[in-house]
């Protein structure tokens, strides 16, 4: 079942058409990467899903229910983590989560239990200080905790890692992977390595349209190259093989590239014949970054 569906969604701000006929679905219990450049319309799409903005055209459903602008009831299925989460700085993390629990209508004992669980999940269980003194990473982790407070069916994260250092990024990605078991995650980003690390499916948003979508494997297949990379143990062996097979291309001291895979048996034959030492023979996967650059036309 699809947890989230956008069908032919359009949104215009004055003369600028930010979203032009956007359609995609997010299957349940997946981590879905929503990729695009800054200003591509990712945050607008997320605000439409949250009912914070109204669609000009199209329909959005969350868990089968249509999203309405304003006080949409579909928000009870959703947890939202903004790109820069801001909190009431005079509260402690436990007080903030208790506040979140209370406004979602959770009973007090459950609120207390859930807050303790989540603070442990994000590593803030020992924090008794007020949020005022928190670092960006700590705020981001608390942001995840508040977003998960009501056990959402869909967690929407708007570029959650863009402002974090590598350690903070890893911590946050680990948390998102951990919550995947019980929650569908829609994760917007322009950091493609994050998508490769945690996402099951992705959609590329470019100039207000979905330029590419599918599972990581499907997306890669679109641009799968037939090239094969050979890593030799010694640079001398690489030189020798290059002389035997002039159609190879040298990429480094001991790294060779075979662009036409039909020559692979011949290359392997030469390696065996000359008793050359090979470390690795690998079919090249196109990097998401290459795909992304191709999609945006650069």
């Amino acid at each position, binding site marked *: 079942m699809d947890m989230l569906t956008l069908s032919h969604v359009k949104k215009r701000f004055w003369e600028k058409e930010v979203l032009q006929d956007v359609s995609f679905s997010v299957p349940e219990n997946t981590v879905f990467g929503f990729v695009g450049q800054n200003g591509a319309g990712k945050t607008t799409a997320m605000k439409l899903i949250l009912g914070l903005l109204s669609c000009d055209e199209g329909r959005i459903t969350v868990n089968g229910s249509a999203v309405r602008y*304003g006080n949409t*009831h579909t928000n009870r299925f959703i947890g939202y983590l903004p790109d820069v989460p801001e909190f009431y700085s*005079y509260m402690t993390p436990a*007080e903030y989560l208790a*506040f*979140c629990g209370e406004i*979602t209508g959770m009973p007090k004992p459950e609120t207390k239990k859930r807050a303790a669980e989540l603070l442990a999940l994000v590593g803030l269980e020992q924090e008794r200080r007020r949020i005022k003194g928190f670092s960006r990473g700590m705020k981001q982790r608390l942001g995840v905790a508040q*977003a998960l407070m009501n056990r959402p069916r869909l967690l929407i994260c708007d570029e959650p890692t863009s402002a974090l250092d590598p350690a903070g990024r890893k911590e946050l990605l680990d948390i998102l992977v951990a919550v995947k078991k019980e929650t569908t995650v829609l994760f917007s980003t322009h950091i493609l390595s994050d998508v490769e690390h945690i996402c099951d499916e992705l959609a590329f948003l470019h100039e207000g349209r979905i330029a590419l979508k599918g599972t990581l494997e499907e997306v890669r297949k679109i641009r799968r190259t037939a090239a094969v990379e050979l890593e030799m143990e010694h640079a001398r062996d690489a030189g020798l093989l290059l002389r035997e097979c002039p159609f190879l291309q040298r990429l480094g001291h001991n790294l060779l590239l075979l662009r036409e895979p039909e020559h692979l048996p011949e290359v392997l034959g030469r390696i065996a014949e000359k008793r050359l030492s090979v470390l690795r023979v690998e079919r090249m996967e196109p990097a998401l970054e290459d795909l992304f650059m191709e999609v945006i036309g650069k």
Partner: protein
Amino acid sequence: MRAFLKKEWMELVRTGRLLLLLLIFILFGIMNPAIAKLTPWMMEIMVEQLAESGLALTAVTVDAMTSWTQFYKNIPMALGVFVLLHSGIFTTEYQKGTLIPVVTKGLSRPRIAAAKTILLLGTWTVLFFLCYGITYGYNAVFWDNGIARFPLLGAVCCWLFGVWVLAWMLLFSIAADTSTQVLLGTGGVVLGIYVLSLFPKLGNVLPVKLLDGMSLLSGNAFPKDYYASMGIACAMAAVCLLLAVSCFNRKNL
């Protein structure tokens, strides 16, 4: 809504705003009779200087009315400080984005607006009547409040003027994006109404008349003279609050 009210109260206390306002309103409450009490002493000190410049001072009589005069002079200043400290009631939340998680968790916008309005008007009411009570108490100790006619009605008029100003402030805070815009908007409306009230016919019905409590206390005016301006202030405040809620429902957070 209870949770949001609790949050608003926590904010008022923990940011030190409540303490600051308490100090200001208590200080104003004490200052009114204190200035009246000290007036003869100050005059005595100044009598020689004034004599040198050709002014002769006769005996100065001080009573509860002197203190009430100070009260009606000081309360607009206290209201100004109150507005200044609350001008970011919505705009600060817009700028920081702190309302987004609250709204996306299902708390309706009218409830958020209601909670903020209740706490704002509640705080104003408590602080205003604290200031009034302190002045009244000291007046009773030092002089006789009996010479002032309708002191409570005069205070209610003044309090209602504050409610009217705060309703405008709420409307501007919801509609605007910065505290400066809120202060300019609210100040502009008060100034505009003040200018209009310079016309005698309008002056008797516009909310600015509510600040003239001294006429009521001294017997130069009667309660019925204030009913029209009270009614207009209530109606305008109600319209402002309704507009504020409607505007908040459409506000892009």
